[in-house]
């Protein structure tokens, strides 16, 4: 499924952070967002995945086509690895978590409570969730945080498999993942001009 974003303006706390963001992401393609901290990458990703409405502009794909993975993995400490994943797979109406566990080498940890995992293992479980959603466009916010080199390789393999199956991925990351086909978009060029004239009423909305 193709994702076309046209002239998107996103806001954070009533302030415009990015203006006129436009790009096209074809199926099978990957797009990496770059930019300094605080530029609005997370806000942009949340707006595209439908968590917050954009101020202006259009997103061609429906909200049902996105699988969003943010900074938090949404894991429950007292549920086991397999139970966490099975929950999400049944929410998305799909069965079978075996391949997702396999892809991130979590099978030996399947019965362990998620609270006992290390930060990197939690992250791997959070990324394994993407595989059970079955959605075509993955939206990833800093997916490689706390992953070691082997886990990054697993992640890249999962992304490659997803792209090969006709999916696409939009991610914000600072490290070079070595995905040759990925395009890089620097969002600094879309930075919203600092608006000195603040609408007085907006302070009370």
């Amino acid at each position: 499924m193709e994702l076309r974003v046209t002239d998107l303006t996103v806001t954070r706390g009533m302030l415009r952070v990015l203006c006129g963001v436009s790009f096209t992401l074809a199926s099978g393609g990957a797009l990496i967002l770059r930019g300094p901290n605080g530029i609005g990458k997370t806000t942009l990703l949340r707006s595209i995945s439908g968590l917050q409405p954009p101020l202006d502009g259009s997103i061609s794909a429906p909200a049902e086509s996105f699988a969003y993975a943010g900074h938090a993995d949404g894991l429950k400490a007292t549920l086991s690895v397999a139970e966490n994943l099975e929950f999400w797979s049944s929410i998305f109406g799909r069965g079978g978590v075996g391949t997702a566990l396999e892809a991130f080498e979590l099978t030996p940890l399947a019965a362990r409570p998620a609270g006992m995992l290390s930060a990197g293992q939690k992250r791997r479980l959070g990324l394994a969730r993407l595989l059970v959603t079955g959605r075509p466009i993955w939206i990833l916010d800093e997916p490689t945080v706390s992953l070691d080199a082997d886990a990054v390789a697993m992640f890249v393999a999962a992304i490659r498999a997803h792209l090969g199956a006709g999916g696409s991925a939009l991610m914000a990351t600072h490290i070079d993942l070595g995905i040759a086909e990925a395009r890089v978009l620097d969002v600094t060029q879309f930075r919203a001009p600092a608006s000195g004239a603040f609408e007085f009423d907006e302070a009370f909305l």
Partner: protein
Amino acid sequence: MIALLIRDVRLAIRAGGGFGLGLAFFLIVVVLVPFGVGPRTELLTSIAPGILWLGALLACLLSLDRILALDWEDGSLDLLATSPLPMEGVVSMKALAHWLTTGLPLVIAAPVLAIMLNLPPQGFGPLVLSLILGTPALSVIGTFGAALTVGVKRGGLLLSLLVLPLYVPTLIFGAEVSRRGAEGMDFSTPLAMLAGITCGTIAILPFASAAVLRVNLR
């Protein structure tokens, strides 16, 4: 949606889930009241319906901030919002899970604890009936309050203040049903009012909670 319900009930029952919190609070209130009131059984009999209802309401209030705050903190709420489940379904299941783990145990424990408050025998049926009909409203209203305060750090105080006035009608009619039942009077009018409040909140508030939650997730 059943998966969400099963997960929430399972989380509540497992260690640290807070399943026994409301029940223990209810037990403490009801056990301590006779000590505070003193050895006057007639007085206890007359205040028993009110104390039992108040105890159940406060026990319910105690666990409200867990309904959505935990899911907000670990990011599950964002993921649920982007999942195929409608937000109205999510909040309804959250409220149902809260009722199953908090309201239902209170309903079951109430007749046992009513003995300690010297509730007359004919009052047991109306008490259980009023709690069964009234506590779902407490969970649904509580979920609305939790949705309103979901982004607020340590929002428990704000949540209590927001929710308490909304609890008052349920408390009035619920306690009235069990009081009239205990005194052997006809209790059909307050029972109809109580059932009406519960049905109304179940019909309307999930939509309000979902709308509020969408705003709070921005």
